[in-house]
Structure formats: structure tokens, C-alpha cells
């Protein structure tokens, strides 16, 4: 059964992080919060596996 990956899994973590922060450029705090909410939903749909999503919720606590 598939589980949440908690080992490093991104080939270029600095590139991702820079893109993530850049995506928020010019947004107000409220807009950033809304953006993050949408981002979580988009990624959750991509994952599409309830076991993994539950593990992700747990890991983020």
C-alpha cells in the first residue's frame, strides 16, 4: 500500500522553493492565504489517495 513519502523526493528543492515564494509576489496576506488553500486542494487532488492524505495531515501537525 502506498504511503506518504517523507524522505527527500524533489530533484531541485531550491528551484521549487523559489517558485513557491515567487508565486506569492504582490499578493496581500489574505490573498496569499487563499492561494495556499487552493494550492493544497490542487495537490490533494493530484495525490488522490485518502491514506496518503491522512498521513500528510498527521505529518503537518
Amino acid at each position, binding site marked *: 500500500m502506498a504511503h506518504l*513519502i*517523507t*524522505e*527527500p523526493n524533489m530533484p531541485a528543492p*531550491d528551484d521549487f522553493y523559489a517558485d513557491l*515564494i515567487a508565486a506569492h509576489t504582490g499578493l496581500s496576506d489574505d490573498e*496569499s492565504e487563499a492561494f495556499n488553500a487552493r494550492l493544497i486542494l490542487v495537490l490533494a487532488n493530484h495525490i488522490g489517495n485518502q491514506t496518503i492524505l491522512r498521513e500528510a495531515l498527521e505529518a*503537518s501537525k
Partner: protein
Amino acid sequence: MFQDRYPLAFKLYPYEKSKDQDASDAVRHPVVIVGGGPIGLGTALDLGRQGIPALVLDDHEGVGIGSRAICFAKRTLEIADRYGCGEAMLEKGVVWNVGKVFQDDRQVYEFNLLPETGHRNPAFINLQQPYFEKFIFQSICAEKEKGAPIEVRGKNRVEAVETKNDHVVLTVMTPDGPYTVEADWLISCDGASSPIRGMLDLGFDGRVFQDSFLIADIKMKSNDFPTERWFWFDPYFKSGASTLLHKQPDDIWRVDFQIGWDVDRDEEMKEENIRKRLDAMLGDDVEYDIVWSSIYTFQCRRMKRFRHDRVFFAGDAAHQVSPFGARGANSGFQDVDNLGWKLGLVVTGKAPESLLDTYNEERVYGADENILNSTRSTDFITPKSKVSRSFRDAVLKLAEKHAFARPLVNSGRLSVPCTYDHSSLNGPDKLPGAPAVSRVGAPCPDAPLGDGFLLDKLGDEFVVLAIDTAVPDEIEIEGIPVRGISIKTTDDPSNGLVERYLGSEKQGVYLIRPDQHVAARERTYHPDALRAAVLKACGKE
């Protein structure tokens, strides 16, 4: 009056009147270097070792005080080995591998640079910059004994520069008054606030970071502190928004406090106030002396071009980065390494002037890589918005428990040498089974060889390296000497040579530039292919 701008750590080249000052006509020199810091002295050493006369003009008589750049990377030591001063640096320097990252009072994670075995040099050493410069100068003296045409003139301050079609005219102030000197080529290594850049009215654009850092070098009276890099985000002791602790030689530790933009510098520099920050961090019972302190701010920026006809810019004069990642002096030393052989070939008429444009091409590429990395580190360490801070803190929190978040923690991406992936000097890469680490454009990775190391065998000229095959010992291509070296992987029982140069290939032939970057690689030796690759690497096609 000839006033020093800073006190000296080492007086190395006291002012002496030169006969150029009494000449009725300005004396012409092939290469004049402005600035006697590590980049200027390194460039003089590189050129002098090739027999190219190099004149250094410095407005002081030696090395200024202050540890400044303390972190020197393996690539820098490899270049210094070629120049004959790497061993002295390694012997004096502090070797470190372990870094710890904290937030508040918690350790977020620990890393070990775990250097690969089979390299002569470690990943990093810490060494006060004055020692680094002094060792270079000692090599200059040793090379001069052997006849290298290097001259370093102290208290020679360039006051004006005029560019002509085929040379540059400099007005130089000395304690005996001004004189004029001419240069076929001028290399400006005069630091981040480069007076030469200003005199030529050239821009230096980039991003200003509105933050300042207080450095204190402290000599500990006990030796309980580790030889590790400790970095705090938001430390519990509140001495700075971030804090770095790092060991140097002579029982001295470097402490960097990030203290914000709107600070009263004079107030912060008072010993009692520096001690308040240090005592909060170290505890009241730790005894120490403050040996040097300074406040600095920084910018990430570069000149548009590093070559302006007859004038080159190198080191901080050409590009400036934040200190996170030790990419300042280390990248400047790669400039030295890159420009030296190219200028040598052009001055001796063996390569066309267009080769010099590739200094600009390759080192701008390197500077952009350094600026990108150091900007990202700075943004992580000092988040610029609420959401950026939220993500930063989320990464730090997750990193305590989950390995995946650790690569995202960015307290500085430590300097690694630039690979010139798309350089116009690159020849064919026709060794598909060989690893990426030694691909065309990469600096040659070191490997054990017999009783020594591979890089010691490469040198100041082009090398064609045959691994488990053979090449002629001496080849000359349009006046450019190429030394053939044939080695066997059986000379390296550790298998490092195979892992770093052959991969799944049975044999390989590498063309290596004088700066030890790979110019081309193939399976077998073909004289015509080698000739084409050498000419390409010299800008002759």
C-alpha cells in the same frame, strides 16, 4: 599625504620608488593589475608563472586586518595547489565537515559534508583572509626567485584611467607624487567599491539587501567550542535575527549577528554592546577577547560585462554576493583561474583576442549562479513577507521530524565550482557511459593516483589525459603545447578514477584546459579530433 584607509595585518610590499616614476615617457607594461587583494595577487601569480610580466598596483603596503572571507572551498585549494600555496593554507586552516542548524533553542538538523575520499583537499577550510593573502604573496616571492616577472608596488594608488585603442593609461599617486604608466591589458581587482569601475563610469546593478550584520572574532579562553558550523534562525538568546558561529585558526571563533537595517553603527560597535550580544549567546561564564569586529551590509549584483575592451574586472569588483555560501572569494578565485591562461595565450600571440570574451561569457555564467544561490539563501534567512516567513518557519518545523524538509532549509548553499555547461569553448562529449561529474565544462574531479592525486599531474597547460589507453607525450597544435598523460585505473585501487571518469566506459580520452576544466572527452585518441577540440578551446574557430 598618503593616508592608509585601514590598518595592516601584514606589511608585505613596502613602498619603493620605481624607475617608471623617473622615466620621461610613460613605461608600457603588458599587464597591470589594480588591487593587491587575493584576486589581484592570485592573477599576478598565475600570469607570472606563465612568464607573462605582471605589475600589481596597490594603494596599501600589504594585507588589511580583519578575518573577512574565512571559508575557502576545495576548488580554491586546488587552484592554490597549482600556484604552490595550497599546502600552506591547508596546514594553517581549520578543516570542518559538520554543520548544525538551530531555530530558537531547538536543533532543526545536522549535516555532514561527508567529503568523498580520494581528494587531496577537504570540502572546506576556514582561514582568516590575511593568511590566505599572505600565502599567495609567499608563492609570488618564491616564483620571483625562480624568475617569474611579477612586481607588486605598494602605496601606488590609481587616480585616473584613460582607455586607448590598444592600451590603457593610468595616473598613479605615490608618496613621491604622481606618475603615468601604460598597460596593454588592465585587470581591475579593486574590490566591491572598485574605483576603476567608477572612473570608467560602468554600472553595477543588482539587489540591495536592507539588513546589516555584526561580525565579532573572539578568542576563547577555553576550547570547549566545536569545530562545526552552527547556524541559528531566530535564536533564543535574541542577539540577532540569525546568528552564525564558526571556528577559525588560532582559537578564534567567528560570530555573525544579523542585526537589522536601522542600526546605529557607532553604538553597535561599542565593545560593551558587542559583549552584551555575545554574553547572551555564550552565557556569562565564558571568557573571551574580542580580536576584531565590523558591521557589514551586502548586495547581490554584477556588472553587465566583465570585459570592456582592454579592461577586465575580477572578483568583488565584477560581482558581489551575500556572504551566505562562501561564494565571494571562492568565485573570485575562479575568475583568476579562468582569466590567467586565456590572457597568457593572447599576450604571447598563441590565441586570438576573441578568446578573452569567453572570460566574460564563462564568469558571468558563474556569477549568475552564485548570485542566484546567495539570493535564495538570503531570502530564506531573512524572509521579505509574512507568507515567506510562514513557509520558512514551516520548513524549519517540519525539518526537525521529516527528512524531506531538510534539503529546503537554506542557511547558505556552500560554494561549489561552476560547470561551464554551454561554453562556446566546449568540444564534443562523446563518452556516454561516463559520469556527469566530469562532463565537458566541469572542473576535473580529483582522484587518487599511485602515491598522489590526479590533479597534481595536470598543470598549467593543456593536457590530454588517456585513461586505460595511450596518447603521445608531447603534442603541439598551432604553437599551443598539449601534454599527453596516459594513466591506468589499476593505479587507483580505490576505484575513484573509474567512478569519476569512466563510469561504464572501458577507456576514455579527456582534453583538459589549463584551468583544469574538461574541454572534450571521447573514447579513443584521434589526432584530428584533438586538434579541433584544442583549437575550439582556444577560441580559434
